[in-house]
């Protein structure tokens, strides 16, 4: 019997609901996620315009194409829930630490209000969902970030959940996959946000020490504190086509040092050229690529964990 068969028999997975859900993509206001009947009469949900090439297409067609523009190949941003549905086997997923919520330790002006709004708009408790499931039959621990929750910012909750995910991966001997998207550290928790970079990186140092596998998938956009911690620490780093990522964003660079930057600056392809990622992989190839990588780390029936 194979290790993964054993695993599947033991685990019972909760299923991420596929019921309709309102998502707020990158602050462009609420958009309606593809959902059949009740939404049919709402025209805005029926069609979608590609922000890159302007092509208008049926939401249904777009969804079938994994939210990649059928005309130009632009990869639309995904919420954490959408990505989990696409990447995990049968969309099934056992979630960790779902009840963890932010505090307002600095009593930062407007933080509580903004946070509540994000919770209401996304149905999430913070900018990351962590848990376990299988990809291509391989058990994995995954952390999936969502840009629609306060710009995917890294604060205490994201830092803690990602650190716990790393620790679960260590305990369970499962590979870890993190899908990143973030504007950077969360300003409203200032120094505590900054320290989450050290905390998550220190946890990854332990996983690394143990010989554990960590695959980092960078999606559009990923900047600041997330780039300067776990997103760039993968044994393998994969980016989605066109995903913008870096440490300092182009606008800040242009304003601060008045440097003229090429149009392609900080795209996944630009970063590939400059040696910052292993590969740029289309969304429709992502799951099979991850599966192949996981498969290559199976040694004598066990996943690579130095044993």
């Amino acid at each position: 019997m194979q290790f993964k068969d054993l695993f599947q028999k033991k685990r019972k997975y909760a299923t991420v609901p596929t019921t309709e859900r309102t998502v707020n993509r990158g602050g462009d206001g609420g958009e309606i996620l593809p959902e059949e009947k009740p939404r049919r009469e709402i025209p805005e949900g029926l069609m979608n315009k590609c922000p890159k090439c302007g092509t208008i297409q049926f939401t249904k067609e777009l969804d079938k194409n994994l939210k990649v523009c059928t005309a130009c190949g632009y990869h639309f941003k995904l919420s954490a829930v959408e990505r989990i549905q696409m990447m995990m086997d049968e969309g099934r997923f056992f979630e960790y630490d779902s009840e963890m919520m932010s505090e307002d330790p600095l009593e930062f002006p407007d933080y509580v209000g903004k946070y509540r709004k994000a919770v209401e708009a996304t149905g999430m408790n913070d900018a990351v969902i962590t848990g376990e499931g299988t990809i291509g039959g391989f058990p994995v621990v995954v952390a999936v970030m969502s840009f629609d929750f306060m710009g995917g910012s890294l604060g205490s909750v994201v830092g803690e959940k990602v650190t716990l995910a790393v620790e679960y991966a260590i305990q369970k001997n499962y590979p870890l996959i993190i899908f990143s998207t973030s504007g950077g550290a969360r300003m409203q928790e200032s120094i505590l946000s900054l320290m989450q970079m050290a905390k998550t990186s220190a946890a990854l140092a332990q996983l690394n020490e143990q010989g554990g596998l960590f695959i980092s998938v960078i999606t559009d956009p990923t900047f600041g504190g997330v780039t300067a911690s776990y997103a760039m620490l993968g044994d393998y780093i994969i980016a989605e086509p066109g995903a913008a990522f870096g440490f300092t964003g182009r606008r800040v660079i242009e304003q601060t040092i008045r440097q003229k930057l090429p149009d392609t600056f900080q795209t996944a392809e630009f970063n590939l050229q400059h040696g910052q990622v292993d590969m740029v992989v289309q969304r429709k190839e992502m799951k099979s690529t991850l599966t192949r990588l996981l498969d290559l780390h199976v040694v004598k029936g066990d996943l690579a964990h130095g044993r």
Partner: protein
Amino acid sequence: MAGELPFEQPLLELKNKIEELRRFGADKQMDFSDEIARLEQRHEQLAAELYSNMSTAEKMQLARHPQRPTTSDYIQLIFTDFIELHGDRLYGDDLAIIGGLARLNGVPVTVVGHQKGKDTKDNIARHFGMPHPDGFRKGLRLMKQANKFKRPIITFIDTPGAYPGGAAEERGQGEAIARNLMEMASFGVPILCVVIGEGGSGGALALGVGNRVFMLENSIYSVSSPEAASSILYKDATRSKEAAEAMKITSEHIKALGVVDEIIPEPRGGAHRDVQTQAEAIKQMLTKHLQELSTLSEKELIEDRYNKFRQIGRFTIQEGNHNHA
């Protein structure tokens, strides 16, 4: 002393008045000693008042004071036998970070720190203490060396942040910082970090993963520079004072949040008023904590550091608030 800050003007005026009176008395051979004593007492009172009630913005000015002592000043005063080492062996020698070998109380250590310039020309060469990836990688190279030869690591933190530039991004600014965080977490030697001026963003943290982290009384530490935070939060770079206040960047706040272990007091009016005394205070703190840590094994040192950062953060568990499953 030159370099008075705007909020220190009343003190300067009083001081000038005292000087003037002294000169006048000497010229005219008149005795103003009562008047002078009275004024000096007022000066004393005013100074005590001003410096004990500094706002965040005022502390920020002290932390960025052009005469504030830098890493190289402290290296000269705290250590002996300093040998500076250069380059990351990959690309170049970033002068925004300096480092090398030295002795602390006779014991060999590795010292690494951000280096701001002493004047405009020096600042341009050192990018105002804002490192490129090459700087972080130079620091990492020296720290790895320390780990190999079992030397304690001392770092000095003083940067507005990592350098914002195209070349820095192309060479992997994010990766360089991330790598430092991960590697520093895994060294089996004591690591002590001192925030001596500005601790800005990931560029500061890249030298900040220590068993003990200290802040000078008037130094600041934050997730990004108040200017950057202002433009991110309010889409307006001029509201930096407001952002600084909101981000709780002063040493007492940072200590209350559990991020630094101890605050090192500064001479009244800031470290630049008496560099010798300041250096001595830092040295005592380093010596005390290095002694404490010297009893720990390599494994214990790594655990100690992990536990320190592991517990930082605030959150609640809201049972039943299970949003998505």
